[in-house]
């Protein structure tokens, strides 16, 4: 299969590539959102720990 045929997808190019592109976008969004959710919780928890320590000393 040459590269032109590959991108042409037998006339279904717009459908096949938009479906794969959208899947990549949603997976990337999940990757970003999950990382951000964890990082935010970690920052907040560390901050709570610091505040608690300041109160003790």
């Amino acid at each position: 299969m040459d590269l032109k045929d590959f991108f042409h997808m037998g006339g279904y190019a717009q459908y096949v590539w938009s479906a794969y592109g959208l899947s990549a976008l949603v997976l990337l969004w999940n990757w970003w959102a999950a990382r951000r959710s964890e990082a935010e919780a970690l920052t907040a928890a560390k901050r709570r720990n610091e505040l608690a320590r300041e109160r003790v000393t």
Partner: protein
Amino acid sequence: MWTWFHKLASPPHAYRILGLLAPWFGWASLALILLAAWWGLAKAPADYQQGDGFRILYVHAPSAWMSMFVYVVMAVAAGVGLVWRIKLAHAAAAACAPIGASFTFLALATGSIWGKPMWGTWWVWDARLTSELLLLFLYLGYMALRASFDDPQRADRASAVLALVGVINVPIIHYSVDWWTTLHQPASVTKFDKPSIQLAMLIPLFIMIAGYQLYFGWAVSRRLRGEILRRERNANWLKEAS
């Protein structure tokens, strides 16, 4: 056996284990998804009826499968949390919801893109499509319900009931293509008979599903670590963990 279980369910322990597992899930899923995409797009033979258009299968079916799988995981976790009052189980259910919602959206969107050239329409209100749309609303409703409580314990209990009631929709989605007339094709893999799809087409599909499962494992580990931190108000163990 129960001491082992309690250790595993203790937040600091779970936090650490999830942190160790996540990178393995992540890299393995990346490798499998890329392999399956190449295989499905370039190597698998074209369909005799749908030509190259059928290649959408490799992103549509795995996301549809995951949309239901994640919901069942979420409902089981919510049920365990409700019956045995395990906070970690509620946290796991909460971590599942946004991931499941995104897979459901993806299943609907890629299905719509597939439907246009094959059925001549983006959308029909038939049983399969409507019940899958209902699944998306169940996920969104679950998240909205959680967000509406200030008290996390009340949010856990109320949303767990919703998750459990909604699980009835999962078999409805699966069997909708047999119970009602629909444009959607019937199951070709998940049936008791031999799969009615060629092995050369089936292999990349299974690789993609395995990749999506591992991807879910990665995402839920990351989100569950966040949930654990949010729930542990006095996380003194965090000093050693981070």
